C-alpha cells in the first residue's frame, strides 16, 4: 500500500486523533481540578475562601448532597471545616454540640446501665448531605431497635413495656403492639387545709378517675339547647372554654377568671347584682359578706342616714347609759352578722360555691369561716410523654377524641385511648387510608428532662458522686454534682 500512495490516511491512527494525550489531559485535568487544587487551597483559610468564591471547583464540589434546610447557612454551607474538623476523621459530636448543646440524652445514663448507645455519635442518626431525607430520624427502627425487646437490649430496670410499632395493622406475629396509653394525673393528698398533689401514672385500660375536687358536668355545659347564662340563653362550644396555647399545640389551663366567671357570677344578693364575693379563701368571702351586710344594716336597713344620737349610741356604747339597752344593741349588731352568715350558708352549701366546689364544714373554730373549700388542681398535661398538636387536628371535631358531651362527672377522664388514635393513625406505612405515624410522630428521642448529650453521666457515676459527697462533706456537693 505504501508503495502505491504513501500519503493516504486510511486509518484513524494516521489522523490527528489521539487517545493517549486526551487520556493524559483528562486524567491530570480532573485530578488537578477536583482534588489537588481544592486540597492545596485548604492549607490556608484565605486560599480556601478565594477558591470557593472563584468559578473553579473548590472543596464545595466535594459536597455529596445538599445540607439539610436548617444547616443551609453560610457559616456551614460554605465552610466544610465547620463540621469536618480533622481530615480523614468522622464528624465528632463536639461539632454538633457547639450549637446544639441543649440536645439532651435519651435516658439517665447515671442510673441505667444501657450500653446500646455507647459509641453512638450525633451523626449516627442525624445523617447530613442526604437530602431529601430528613436529618431527623423518623423511622420506627430508631426506637424499636431497643424498645421491641428492652431486656435483651440491656434495659432491665424499667417499667416500660416492649413495643414494636404503632398501629394494630402493623404488628407482626409475635411482635409487641403499642400498650394502652397512660395518663399523668394529679392526685390530691391530705385534707382541705393541707392538700399536696402527687403526679400519678394511670393506664386508660384501668379507666382511672380524676379527683380534681372540681364539680363540673361536661354534658350540662354542652347541652345543645343552651344554658341559662346571665346574658340569656347561650349554647356553648368546646372552644368557648378550651383554647390552645400560642403554638396551637396544648390547651391553655382552665381558670375561674378566664373561663367560668362570665356565666358563674359570684353575686350573693339579688338586690345588688353588681356586688360579688371574691373568688378566694372562705374567710375572705365571709368577711366580705359581713362588711357588706354591716354597711347595709347601718345605711340601707335604716332607710336613711343614722341620726347623731344613733351614731353616738353606736360609738359610745356603754353599759347602763341612757342609750338603748344592751339587749337592743346586741340584737341590732347581730343582725348584719346573722344575715352575712345565712347568705354565706346559702352560697357555700347550696348555690354559688357549691356549684363547682366540694365544701365541708369545720366547726373547730380554727378559722373565721367554718366552711372549708377543697382546693382544685386540674391536670393540665395529661400525656407529657408524648407530643400532641391540637392545631394539626383542627379539622376534626373535638368529640372525635373527647367524649365530653356525655360526661356527667368531672372525674371522667376524657383523654382518648389507643383505639381512638388507631382509628385514624397507623404505623410507619399507611393502611386503609390511615395516616402513617412513626414512633417519633408522638415521642421524642431526646428527653428534655435528661442531661445534655455531651454531659451525660456515666452509669454508676451518680452513686460514685454520692459516695464522694459523703466522704468529703456537704460543702463539696455542688462541685461534685456539676462535674460532667
Amino acid at each position: 500500500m505504501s508503495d502505491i500512495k504513501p500519503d493516504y490516511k486510511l486509518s484513524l491512527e494516521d489522523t490527528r486523533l489521539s487517545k493517549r494525550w486526551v487520556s493524559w489531559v483528562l486524567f491530570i485535568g480532573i485530578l488537578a481540578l477536583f482534588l489537588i487544587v481544592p486540597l492545596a487551597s485548604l492549607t490556608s483559610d484565605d486560599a480556601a475562601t478565594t477558591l470557593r468564591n472563584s468559578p473553579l471547583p473548590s472543596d464545595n464540589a466535594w459536597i455529596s448532597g445538599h445540607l439539610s434546610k436548617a444547616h443551609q447557612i453560610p457559616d456551614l454551607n460554605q465552610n466544610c471545616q465547620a463540621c469536618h474538623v480533622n481530615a480523614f476523621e468522622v464528624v465528632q459530636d463536639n461539632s454538633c454540640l457547639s450549637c446544639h448543646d441543649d440536645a439532651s440524652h435519651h435516658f439517665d445514663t447515671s442510673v441505667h446501665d444501657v450500653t446500646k448507645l455507647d459509641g453512638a455519635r450525633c451523626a449516627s442518626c442525624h445523617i447530613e448531605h442526604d437530602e431529601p431525607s430528613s436529618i431527623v430520624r423518623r423511622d420506627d427502627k430508631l426506637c424499636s431497635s431497643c424498645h421491641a425487646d428492652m431486656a435483651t437490649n440491656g434495659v432491665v430496670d424499667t417499667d416500660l413495656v416492649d413495643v414494636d410499632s404503632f398501629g394494630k395493622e402493623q404488628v407482626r406475629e409475635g411482635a409487641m403492639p403499642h400498650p394502652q396509653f397512660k395518663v399523668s394525673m394529679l392526685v390530691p393528698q391530705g385534707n382541705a387545709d393541707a392538700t399536696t398533689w402527687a403526679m400519678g401514672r394511670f393506664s386508660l385500660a384501668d379507666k382511672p378517675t380524676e379527683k380534681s375536687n372540681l364539680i363540673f358536668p361536661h354534658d350540662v355545659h354542652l347541652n345543645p339547647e343552651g344554658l341559662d347564662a346571665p346574658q340569656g340563653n347561650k349554647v356553648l362550644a368546646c372552644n368557648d372554654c378550651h383554647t390552645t396555647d400560642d403554638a396551637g399545640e396544648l390547651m391553655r389551663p382552665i381558670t375561674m377568671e378566664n373561663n367560668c366567671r362570665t356565666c358563674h357570677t359570684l353575686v350573693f344578693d339579688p338586690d345588688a347584682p353588681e356586688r360579688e364575693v371574691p373568688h378566694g379563701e372562705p374567710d375572705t368571702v365571709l368577711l366580705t359578706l359581713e362588711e357588706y351586710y354591716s354597711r347595709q344594716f347601718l345605711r340601707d336597713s335604716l332607710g336613711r342616714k343614722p341620726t347623731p344620737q344613733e351614731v353616738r349610741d353606736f360609738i359610745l356604747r356603754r353599759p347602763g347609759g341612757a342609750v338603748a339597752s344592751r339587749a337592743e344593741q346586741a340584737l341590732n349588731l347581730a343582725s348584719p352578722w346573722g344575715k352575712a352568715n345565712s347568705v354565706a350558708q346559702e352560697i357555700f352549701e347550696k348555690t354559688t360555691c357549691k356549684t363547682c366546689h366540694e365544701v365541708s364544714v369545720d366547726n373547730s373554730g380554727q378559722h373565721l369561716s367554718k366552711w372549708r373549700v377543697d382546693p382544685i388542681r386540674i391536670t393540665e398535661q395529661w400525656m407529657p410523654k408524648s407530643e400532641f398538636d391540637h392545631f394539626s387536628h383542627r379539622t376534626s371535631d373535638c368529640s372525635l377524641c373527647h367524649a365530653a358531651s356525655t360526661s356527667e362527672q368531672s372525674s371522667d377522664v376524657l383523654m382518648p385511648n389507643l383505639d381512638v388514635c388507631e382509628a385514624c393513625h397507623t404505623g410507619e406505612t399507611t393502611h386503609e387510608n390511615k395516616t402513617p405515624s412513626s414512633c417519633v410522630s408522638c415521642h421524642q428521642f431526646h428527653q428534655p428532662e435528661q442531661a445534655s448529650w455531651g454531659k451525660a453521666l456515666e452509669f454508676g457515676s451518680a452513686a460514685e458522686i454520692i459516695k464522694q459527697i459523703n466522704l468529703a462533706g456537704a460543702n463539696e456537693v455542688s462541685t461534685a454534682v456539676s462535674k460532667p
Partner: protein
Amino acid sequence: MYQSILNFKRARYLWVALALSIVSIAAYWWHQPVGLPNGGTWLGYTLGTVGAMLIVWLLLLGMRKRSYRSNMGTVQGWTSAHVYLGTALLLVGTLHAGFQFGANVHTLAYVLMVVVIVSGFFGIFVYMRYPNLMTYNRSGDTLDGLLEKIHKVDDRSRRIANTPNLSRLVESAIDGCQIGGSWWQQLSGSGRSIMSVPFAMDPDAQEKAQSNKDHKLVIDVLANRLSQLGGGEEAGAVTSLLANFAAKQTLLRRIRRDVQIRAILKIWLYFHVPLSFGLLAALIAHVVVVFFYW
C-alpha cells in the same frame, strides 16, 4: 469475532455479571439504612469497593491487550468479561450512589462511568454490525487489493489518453483523487477529490480546481467530450476512459466505505479510552474526598 466475545465459554461471564447484579439488587432491596440509601452506608461502601475494583480491573484490559506474552487468560476471555462486568458496573455504581446525584465530584465520576460504559455499548454494537458489512463491501477483496486495482486503472487511463487535453484531464483527476484523509473524512466516507478541466474542454471553468467528488466531474467531462466527438481515435479513447473512471468510481466507493467502516469500528475507542482515564482520575478524587471529609 463478536460472537466469540459475547459467547466466550458459553457466556461464562454473562452469568458472573448476572450473579453480581442479582446479589447487588437483592442486597439493596433488603438493606434499610438510616435515611436514604447512599454510598456512606455499609452496603454503600461495599458496592463502592466492588465498583472501584471493577473499574480498575476493566482498565487493565488495555494493558492485557498489549502484553502478548501474558498467561493470565486469553484476550478474548478478558474482553468477554470486560463487556459483561462493565455492564454490571452500571448497576453496581448506580446502587452504590443510591440514585443520589448532584453537581459534585462524586456525580462527575458517576457520569464519566456511564459515558464510558455507554460508549462501550456502542463499541459492542459496531463490532456486531460492521464486520459483516465490511466483508460484504470488499466482495472478497482486501483494502490493499482494491488500492492495487486503482493503481492499475490509473496506469491504464494514462496510457489510453491520446491527446494532450485528455492526458491533462486524466493526470489532474488521478492527481486530485483523495482517499481517506482526516478522521471526519474517513468517518463520513466522503473523499474530497479535486481536479481541473483543460480550457478546451470547459472554457468557463478557467482551469480552476473543482470538486471531483465521487469522480462525477471527470465522468461528466468525458461523457460531454464523447457527445461532441463524431468518432475517430479520440472518441475511442474517451469511451475507454469513461469505462476506466466508472470502474475507478466503484472501486473508490468500496475503498471509502471500507475506510469508513474501519473508522467506525475504532472511533468509539477515542472516547472510551480517554474517558476511562478521566473516570480513573474522578474515581481517585471521589475516594480520597469521601474519606478526607468523612
